[in-house]
């Protein structure tokens, strides 16, 4: 009895333990890691992945899966770049990027919830097609010449905190609130926990599922807008495999791929963990090839511990 509790506790907090341990080790190895300058850097690096991860969290908790967010980021980013070259007020590229993301998300949701397609297939389709759309709109070339005001969004900071991180924090606060406190949030968990049961309980499961994809799309649109500001050009090939980082952040943060389980705090830690690994190994001078290996191992181990913890409870 005692032993069971300890091991299931351990699996619950495993990711936090790993995170803290990693920070301590990196600080010992390289004291510059903990310098404010580097921490700000980490926040900045974590922002876009964090925003995407929070969108992904809704989809996965509701029992879905979205492969298309990386392409959507690129597509929204291109549109924002095209409209952000001084020809329109900045609000126009902002809204267009959001709407473009939202449209892709709704399309995904309809394919999955109405068309009954497996999320993997539907979003694999949109991932490919939307990437094509980004290339088509940009003619396959980077879109340059965005205004200074637009560039400033990602470059500026408020009281030492980068704007990008502020966007992330706003997203985190809204998403956490929606998931934890609202009826809608509760129903997202219900759909992912047992779709049939949710339907039988009178929940409009089609709406819930479509809306989670819409949220992921919307946040991908926002990320696209921010990305273009950050790299100062619209790249049709940008954000390749960002969906994988978002999924990794969720899974490592304890969001169950079978749906119904997951907490925002875990996703925050998951996002930071990925960024800290990349950043830490960078400043240690470890090659990016190694970073991939470490990331891969962490994904598998995190889920393994999660699965073992669960089966012990049964």
């Amino acid at each position, binding site marked *: 009895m005692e032993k069971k509790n300890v091991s299931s506790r351990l699996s619950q907090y495993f990711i936090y333990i790993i995170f803290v341990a990693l920070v301590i080790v990196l600080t010992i190895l390289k004291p510059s890691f903990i310098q404010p300058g580097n921490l700000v850097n980490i926040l900045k690096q974590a922002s876009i992945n964090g925003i995407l991860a929070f969108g992904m969290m809704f989809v996965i908790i509701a029992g879905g899966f979205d492969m298309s967010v990386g392409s959507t980021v690129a597509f929204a980013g291109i549109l924002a770049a095209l409209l952000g070259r001084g020809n329109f007020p900045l609000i126009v590229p902002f809204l267009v990027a959001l709407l473009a993301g939202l449209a892709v998300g709704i399309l995904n949701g309809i394919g999955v919830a109405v068309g009954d397609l497996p999320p993997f297939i539907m979003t694999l389709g949109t991932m490919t097609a939307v990437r094509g759309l980004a290339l088509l709109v940009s003619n396959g070339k980077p879109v340059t010449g965005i205004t200074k005001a637009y560039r400033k969004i990602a470059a500026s900071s408020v009281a030492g905190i980068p704007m990008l991180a502020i966007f992330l924090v706003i997203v985190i606060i809204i998403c956490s609130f929606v998931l934890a*406190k*609202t*009826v809608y*949030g*509760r*129903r997202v*968990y*219900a759909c992912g*926990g*047992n779709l*049939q*049961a*949710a*339907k*039988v*309980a*009178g*929940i*409009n499961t089609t709406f819930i599922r479509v809306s989670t994809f819409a949220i992921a799309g919307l946040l991908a649109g926002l990320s696209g807008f921010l990305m273009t500001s950050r790299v100062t050009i619209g790249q049709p090939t940008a954000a390749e495999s960002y969906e994988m980082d978002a999924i990794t952040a969720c899974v490592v943060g304890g969001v*169950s791929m079978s749906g*119904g*389980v997951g907490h925002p705090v875990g996703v925050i830690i998951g996002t930071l963990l990925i960024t800290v690994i990349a950043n830490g190994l960078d400043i240690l001078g470890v090659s990016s090839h190694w970073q991939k290996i470490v990331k891969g191992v962490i994904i598998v181990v995190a889920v393994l511990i999660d699965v073992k913890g*669960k089966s012990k*409870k*049964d």
Partner: protein
Amino acid sequence: MDYILEMKDISKTFPGVKALDHVQLKVRPGEVHALMGENGAGKSTLMKILMGIYKKDPGGEILFDGKPYEISSPNEALHTGVAMIHQELNPILDMTVYENIFVGREIRKHGLVDKKAEAKEAEALIKDSGLRVSPYETLRNLTVAQCQLIEIIKATSVNAKVIIMDEPTAAITEREVDILFDHIRKLKAQGVAIIYISHRMEEIFKICDSITVYRDGQYIGSGAAKDFTESSLIKMMVGREITDVFPKAESKIGDVIFEANHISRADGKVNDVSIKVRSGEILGLGGLVGAGRSELVEGIFGMHRLSGGEIIVNGEHVKVHTPADIIRHGVALVTEDRKATGLNLTGTVNDNISMVAIRKTLQNGLYSKAKAKKLSSDYIRKLKIKTPSGDQIAGNLSGGNQQKVVIAKWLLNDPDIIIMDEPTRGIDVGAKRDIYLLIGELVQAGKAVILISSEIPELMGVCDRIAVMAEGHLAGEVQRNEFSQERIMTLASDIQV
């Protein structure tokens, strides 16, 4: 107004099948109304129409409280006052008890979920029901029976006027059945009508006021429960007379061919249990749900680690690490949960039947579809499996026929010892009888059968000897000439007399 619910001339056609043909149902407020019929009779389809999951064919009408009842989703049905407890339980395992109770109708405060209010109300409802769990407990940590009661609490707390209960007692213990029946009586007193679907005859006569019988999508008849007898009811359901519910074949009992001595499981669910069975003998394993019967046979079968004990098959000691070890020695286990561990639901009947004895289907070392088809068609005939063909997807068959496919799968492997864990749960009278007859044929052929059942009359009717388990150990053994319900119940409750 006499009836709370009237369904008149309801028909439902699926591609190629007429599932319901001008069927009737009339339910009075405050009564428990049993829907009886074999699997495939159309009870579930009728209830799904009532819940708005299926749409009825044009024509016919439904009146609820005297008014036309037109709904197109479970949500609308709930709001009109019709709730259903499904046969396939639908708990959301990763949610807490109170979240499950209020799923889909969350209590709100300023537009947000009022968790405190939900937990508080859930606690009151749980207390009312006699269940002892915390509203904050996650369903994953509860037993099947507890989950079922939560489901019932959920359905009864929506203030429904009609509650459909589809096999509500299929997975719960006697004591919990009593709690459920108390619940039902309370609901009746409040004027709530219950539509009750069960294959357990004793329950029908214990709790129901009226009965409506269906067969093959047709309405057969309806009346007060007291005007029926068990045999008249079975006759209406099956369409023919069944004289003995438990046919018992004479067989010659020979030597011990299977022994499991001092079996203990590493997880402590079974402690020092010894059983043996002779050729030609049917050994029953009785006990309450959770007594460790399934755990024992699953342990013997290599599905869980044993911490001690020896297994002797046909005089030979068998070291069992995985099921393959003991299957090789001629032991078969028809598992309790045919959907989870018995069938490949998306595979065809042929695929399923040839799953264990796949070697028999080989031709020149390769899988021969034609051979598999031939072997499986033998068993489809022998076991009277109702299926359009061997190429039918197993998941599309009725429960009784699925069960027969599982049995066929094992018989094809020609085992000497067949262990069956609740083989008749949730299947209809006709299919049950087929299975009893089959068990009889098996022992007549010199095989040994170990039968686990929670229905004591079934054990007493079929077995030569009953071993009773309680809380993971063997409480005692009863010979056929000493069979009595009291004796078995006493052992099962582990009261020393």
